[in-house]
């Protein structure tokens, strides 16, 4: 891919992000931060490439370090988001566990 195609994807994604994020309800802004934090750890892709290739031992260890950090974020970020989202409840669903509403 040439630079311009990549830049186009980036600019379009910024617009998508703009509209999607404005539609997020303010009550979920904290989970939004937690989940964006988890997905920005997609940087692990770069970390995996760095640690996969032979050639430079220093680069490999830097890569492995980044894999550990990004994994903390991925697992921690998604798990904590899941935990938070599970707490949001609608009204009038008393302690009796009936899925009927």
């Amino acid at each position: 891919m040439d630079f311009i195609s990549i830049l186009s994807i980036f600019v379009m994604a910024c617009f998508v992000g703009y509209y999607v994020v404005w539609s997020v309800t303010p009550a979920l802004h904290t989970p939004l931060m937690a989940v964006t934090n988890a997905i920005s750890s997609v940087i692990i892709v770069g970390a995996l490439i760095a640690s996969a290739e032979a050639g430079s031992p220093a680069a490999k260890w830097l890569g492995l370090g980044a894999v550990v950090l990004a994994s903390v974020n991925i697992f921690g970020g998604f798990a904590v988001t899941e935990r938070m989202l599970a707490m949001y409840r609608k009204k009038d669903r008393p302690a009796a566990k009936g899925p009927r509403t």
Partner: protein
Amino acid sequence: MMLAPENTVDLSLAADAAHAVNPWVALAYLAAGVLFILALRGLSSPATSRRGNRYGMAGMAIAVITTLVTHSIASLPEILAAIAIGGAIGFVIARRIAMTAMPQLVAAFHSLVGLAAVLVAAAAFLNPAAFGILGLDGNILPVSRLELMLGAAIGAITFSGSVIAFLKLNGSLSGAAILLPARHWINLGTLAGILVLTVMFTHSPVGGPGENPLFWVVLGLAFAIGFLLIIPIGGADMPVVVSMLNSYSGWAAAAMGFTLHNTAMIITGALVGSSGAILSYIMCRAMNRSFLSVIAGGFGAEASSSGGEAREQRAYKQGSADDAAFMLKQAESVIIIPGYGMAVAQAQHALREMGDLLKEEGVSVRYAIHPVAGRMPGHMNVLLAEANVPYDDVFELEDINSQFAQADVAFIIGANDVVNPAAKTDKGSPIYGMPVFDVDKAKTVMFIKRSMGGVGYAGVDNDVFYMDQTMMLLADAKKMVEEINKALSA
């Protein structure tokens, strides 16, 4: 020298060849990016949010597996061990963390993304061949140098800034604004240095793997500026800071995505970057302050020193838990306004119990949340959700502000500046123009506050304390609510 243009053409062809990947791989990364968009889309309502989170997990799994499958992995055991270690740490933290500590946790997680970006950029700098960014002349391609330097610098700022934010939110570092002399000049100088040196690094003839030491210089300056930028910002401006760092972590990921020509990283980076930017904007708007004035820092530091002495003693009415319980029982409609003080006192569970007791008496109970209440966007909502308050009882500022005129009681717990009428009337006030709750329109105002001594973050006195219909409940928020509960159930 005449050969130069042809040379660059050759180089970019070489780079393209390195990036010429299987279309299925490109599609897999695109699918991951789309799943991330759906993850955020799900957050438009609590009902769809959990499915959204699963989409996010699926996207991440696709991105990781695709990378592992398509690269000749020489060190799979090490990589799996690294994922297992990191994953276990993350999972345990996520399970154990208290909901009141969520702002610190998010700041800490941001710092990890920042540091990971720095490490990846450094690895790309040392071993550019692995990333397909090594030109035929043995130098790293100039455009890739720019991208990875930007990624490293933004990552470094995210890291050191988030560490400071974490320390402030965690209380390890004073939440007050810490002001260095001439800090604006130091900051601007450092920033200019980063930009100039980045350009020099990009255009330098010394561009081999790990060769140009300018990389490390820029990295060091970026770490320093992250630290310097956040240090002068006070505690209650943290919602803006945390959102801003969220945004930076996205831009860092996007910059690395440019280096790797990876669509998943670019889409995600753009999503996260705009998400953080929008949240910062919402927070600033809710305080009626410009982003620059928040970033410049120092808010509250000057105001509280000048406002402290000028305050005269004014008469106020103090009430007891029994008085409050009696009046609450008589009310038809109560609106509760929680603030950071509720989080500090961990009063959310007691508060929900109070709401339940009142509902049993037939009182309508609603919660009103200001966008900047707490230490991060949506902080109060999470705490109320944790305490099992149904989310359809919780309202945003615009949706409930017209209701105060009909409310019998406005019950303020741990909030202050967000109910201060000076924001509407006093042009000289540091919070003038900030949208606030019209609690003065309610028939009765109950104000839980530790003592009459302290004022809100902005350091301005609050006329609500001295209104005829205000009852000050001076105690720790949790204790006071528990006593009210006792009186209610008696």
